[in-house]
């Protein structure tokens, strides 16, 4: 007879393995953590460190070889007017895209979180995710056609007798241009389109977690709807908006394809890195350029934290 406290034995390798894991929970933890830690440590952080290291080297202007000596001159080069131009252009575009996405995403997220139920919620997710299923390049080229001088938008403007409005828009200095597809406005629109889902999903998740009774409590205490929005809904949705903005901001900051296809062919950070490490072969400067978004994101997050964006987490 087996002891009463134990079930009949079921021998086997997996069973014995389970028993070992049961008796040594720390071993299980180790087993779960080692592969991802190896990945994060070596592949992910390792390459990041190698990149950081390269940004402190410089390039010999005559031979084109990398000089493996510590120097800050590469970073100094970033401050050259033409390079500073690229950085500022990228930052302004990223900020504009982030704000544009936030404004578009909030009402959609709010509807999905507070009103959509059952079937409508499924449809919402489907519609939000749908653009992510198709090729990024195809979408960007599709937008080039939409925005082109002979594209749908100019045609629509003509049909509606609004060509003057479109022309006025394109006549605005800096952001305008010969057509939407050759202007910053076009670049902005395509960026907003491509990154919008990354803003909607975290915002919607944050709004979903705002219990309805908090809104009722606010109204109960005498807050008009706009006061409830400002004092309760917005602060509680802020972590989601910040999470979304991290996506939209950093994705815009690093993208090198959209500004190449749609826009007035002035360089953005990603393109600068792409050409510097490729045709120019200036890996140190490319690395220094890459450090810019990292530093910008760190500054951005610390400001967000100080503003209390993560207090509700």
């Amino acid at each position, binding site marked *: 007879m087996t002891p009463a406290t134990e079930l009949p034995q079921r021998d086997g390798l997996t069973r014995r393995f389970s028993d070992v894991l049961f008796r040594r929970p720390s071993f299980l933890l180790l087993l779960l953590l080692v592969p991802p830690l190896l990945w994060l440590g070596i592949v992910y952080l390792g390459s990041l460190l190698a990149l950081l290291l390269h940004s402190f080297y410089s390039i010999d202007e005559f031979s084109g070889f990398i000089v493996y000596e510590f120097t800050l001159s590469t970073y100094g080069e970033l401050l050259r007017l033409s390079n500073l131009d690229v950085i500022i252009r990228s930052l302004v575009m990223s900020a504009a895209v982030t704000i544009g996405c936030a404004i578009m995403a909030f009402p959609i997220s709010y509807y999905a979180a507070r009103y959509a139920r059952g079937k409508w919620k499924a449809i919402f997710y489907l519609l939000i995710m749908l653009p992510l299923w198709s090729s990024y390049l195809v979408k960007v080229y599709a937008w080039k056609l939409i925005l082109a001088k002979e594209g749908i938008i100019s045609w629509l403007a003509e049909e509606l007798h609004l060509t003057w409005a479109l022309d006025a828009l394109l006549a605005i200095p800096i952001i305008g241009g010969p057509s939407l597809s050759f202007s910053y406005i076009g670049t902005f629109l395509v960026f907003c389109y491509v990154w919008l889902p990354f803003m909607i999903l975290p915002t919607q998740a944050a709004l979903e977690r705002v219990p309805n009774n908090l809104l009722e409590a606010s109204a109960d205490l005498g*807050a008009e709807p706009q006061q409830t929005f400002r004092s309760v809904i917005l602060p509680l949705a802020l972590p989601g908006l910040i999470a979304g903005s991290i996506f939209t901001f950093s994705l815009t900051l690093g993208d090198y394809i959209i500004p190449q296809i749609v826009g007035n062919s002035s360089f953005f950070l990603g393109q600068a890195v792409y050409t510097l490490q490729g045709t120019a072969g200036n890996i140190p400067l490319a690395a220094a350029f890459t450090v810019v978004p990292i530093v910008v994101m760190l500054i951005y997050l610390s400001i967000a934290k100080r503003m209390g964006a993560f207090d509700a987490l």
Partner: protein
Amino acid sequence: MTTAVSFQHVSRHFGSVRAVDDVYLDIAEGEFFALLGPSGSGKTTCLRLIAGFEQPTSGHIEIFGATAEGVPPYRRNVNTVFQDYALFPHMTVLENVAYGLMVKGVDKAKREAEAEKALALVALPGYGGRRPSQLSGGQRQRVALARALVNQPKVLLLDEPLGALDLKLREQMQVELKTLQRNLGITFVFVTHDQGEALSMADRVAIFNEGRIAQVGTPEDVYERPETRFVADFVGSSNVLPPRISSAAGGPERWISLRPEKIAILREGEAPSGRFSAAVKVKAVHYQGAGTRLNTETAEGAVLNVMAPSALGRFREGDVLTLHWAPDAVHVMERET
């Protein structure tokens, strides 16, 4: 006496569900009024109708003589203590309590002084700097109370406010709430499914069943003189006996209510003294410390619950007993349902 809240033929239907069905109700100013009923009986919907979170499908609601239909919650001088407190997690305790004054445009120094006063009232002075997440359940409950009271509402609505607290704390809060209500003189409307809570705290109780009010009265009224079988059974789990059994035991041929604690027990061989008696067999024994609850059955198949004081000794399943009770222990129900 002024009427604080008045319901006239109020109904609230959700599709085909009649959450509140033709309710007529008057709550007097300064009263501690309990809405008691099982879950889904419509008591919480009634509270939400007073708060303004729900609008009646039909009927008329008045709060201090003013029509309430169509008035949004933020224009009503009524405040709510929510079941799970609904404290704002991104604000400190002080900001939570001062919220009602903040949205009304009271300046910062004044509203913080008022909030401190309200916190002192609920015995939480100096807790203003903490976050709701750093408080215990009982403390959150007090903060919710302070947050409502700081607005000096004409009516305070409490939605199962003690439901999430453990027994000791709940009993303590019952006493505190009652004292607070006496001192402030505010009308309290209190929703609960706990009949003990309703009976011990309220001046009057409305018993809800399936969207309708089964009975309104003082705690003594609804306990001693239940008008319907539902009230008798829900408040204090009375024995509700059909006319057939009642007459067999020597009583009137009507539906009667017989409280378990009003039934005396005789062991086999002892002779009954009263007219009203029944021979029963013990089916189940539930020991409850101060006494033992016996689940017995008569020869006719009627179930009678009896509270046996511990002094009577121990009972076992299958014991044959004789139950008897005084004539005034029997309450004849006016209505059947």
